């Protein structure tokens, strides 16, 4: 028999545990709640790059776990993060995605806060007998910065960011800190899929074959066995050594990299990536960096945020070229990312009503080529945190 009947289709794959994932991890509402409570409420989450809040009182609003937060560059130079919620009646304090606010004043009753989260003003405070400014500051969220990347955690008792990330970002330190970087590109998209379906596109090298641009610039740029992949404790994983790209293989990309200085520690044709558990990817193609973060909105909906970074203060012509390099692959009209989105939504469509039952992540190329080890490391950590077997998450 080649094709399968329903019982065969429903049957758990005859593979070692960890080599397959149940489609329920994308759709089950109880699993989604577990992810919210046990993953996104606990982990360190990339919020923004320090260049997005360069000056005192600059702020940047973002969402995690359905909660609006903002990072603000304090008067004392420290970047802190707060829930974007007034202590008084719960109104949202900042309604623009970014800005500069010496004082954060709620529109509703004009309660005011400073950049350190202290309540600094309550109109007609004399009317309160039992409300003291000292007791109604903002809810601060732990914030740490590593290599210019600002991370936050909603868990006051979480271990440090350094412990959470371990050595996973070590190979990026030269690139991220050798020259000051800044974000020049930001876009977001609401995807009709579970957040993991998107993040898998960053962890799955095997799908290179889907992209004509990668078939022509990447698949044959170096021997598969020379590609080194690496996974870390905590579910992080990426390239262990630099991969190569042969840009001349795609019409219009010839000469890419010779026209602008590469980022520190990289050559123009190097390709390096790391996936940080649970939902951030950092990818560099020699001359430009992409950071993407996917945030759950619901079991079947996710917010994808994409950033492109170049060298801060570089000549206008260099910036223009870096933008072009970014857009060629990763822009909303690029050759790569829009196709990944199609794939993520397509898989979601199959799993939505359990037409698709399992996905296979069993490629073993001894940490080279297109090994699925990064996916397996991710799901191992996911299972540990959620307390469910990714292959059989619902008893």
């Amino acid at each position: 028999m080649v094709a399968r009947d329903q019982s065969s289709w429903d049957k758990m794959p005859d593979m070692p545990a960890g080599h397959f994932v149940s489609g329920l991890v994308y759709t089950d509402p109880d699993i989604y709640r577990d992810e919210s409570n046990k993953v996104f409420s606990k982990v360190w989450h990339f919020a923004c790059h320090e260049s997005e809040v360069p000056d005192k009182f600059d702020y940047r609003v973002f969402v995690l776990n359905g909660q609006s937060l903002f990072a603000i560059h304090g008067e004392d130079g420290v970047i802190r993060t707060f829930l974007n919620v007034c202590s008084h009646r719960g109104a949202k304090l900042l309604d623009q995605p970014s800005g500069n606010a010496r004082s954060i004043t709620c529109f509703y009753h004009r309660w005011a806060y400073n950049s350190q989260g202290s309540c600094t003003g309550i109109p007609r405070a004399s009317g309160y007998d039992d409300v003291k400014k000292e007791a109604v500051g903002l809810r601060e969220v732990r914030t740490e910065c590593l290599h210019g990347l600002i991370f936050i955690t909603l868990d006051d008792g979480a271990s440090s960011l350094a412990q959470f990330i371990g050595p996973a970002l070590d190979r990026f330190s030269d690139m991220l800190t050798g020259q000051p970087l800044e974000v020049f590109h930001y876009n977001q998209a609401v995807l009709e899929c579970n957040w993991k379906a998107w993040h898998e596109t960053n962890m799955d090298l095997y799908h290179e074959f889907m992209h004509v641009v990668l078939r022509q610039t990447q698949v044959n740029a170096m021997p598969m066995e020379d590609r080194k992949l690496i996974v870390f404790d905590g579910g992080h994983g990426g390239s262990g050594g630099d991969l190569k790209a042969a840009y001349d293989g795609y019409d219009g990309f010839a000469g890419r990299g010779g026209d602008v200085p590469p980022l520190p520690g990289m050559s123009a044709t190097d390709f390096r990536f790391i996936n940080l558990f649970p939902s951030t990817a950092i990818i560099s193609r020699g001359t430009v960096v992409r950071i993407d973060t996917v945030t759950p909105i619901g079991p079947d909906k996710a917010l994808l945020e994409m950033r492109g970074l170049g060298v801060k203060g570089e000549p206008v012509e260099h910036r223009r070229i870096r933008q072009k390099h970014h857009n060629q692959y990763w822009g909303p009209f690029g050759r790569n990312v829009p196709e990944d989105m199609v794939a993520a939504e397509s898989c979601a469509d199959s799993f939505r009503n359990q037409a698709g039952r399992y996905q296979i992540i069993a490629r073993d190329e001894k940490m080279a080529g297109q090994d699925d080890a990064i996916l397996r490391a991710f799901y191992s950590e996911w299972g540990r945190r959620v307390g469910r077997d990714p292959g059989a998450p619902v008893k």
Partner: protein
Amino acid sequence: MSDHDAIRALIGKSCLTLDDSDFESYLALCAPAYSYCVRVWSPELRKDMIWLEHDRDGMAGVFEALPEHLQRSGRLSRLATVATIEAIGTDQFDVVSKFVVHHTDVEGRTQTLAVGRYNDRVVRIDGVVLLSEREVALETRDLGIGLHVPL
């Protein structure tokens, strides 16, 4: 045909030809020195972003590569309304049009995909009006699963 009528027809044809994936006809509407860019204001970064930028050859390359790429299924429909036409000398015009792009999926469901403005420079060459520059000033910043096709 008056200059204004010719320009309106040019803008309309630029939409129709892209809708029909008739890229050869689209490029025939473009001057040899044609340039195209998609510009977006980012309230997150508080700066302009360029999302796509090509000269005429670059656009031709994009069109040529399209059949090999994985694209969202369905069709796009561009509707542009010319708002202003300003003559710059005798053979150049600055034209601003408002546009909306709808996407119709393979089941026939239509949704608004994007809105914005075409800021065009139109030139007259040998008595024919042609697009010399097109800046697509997008207001929509979430294009869903993205596009390969210029708007």
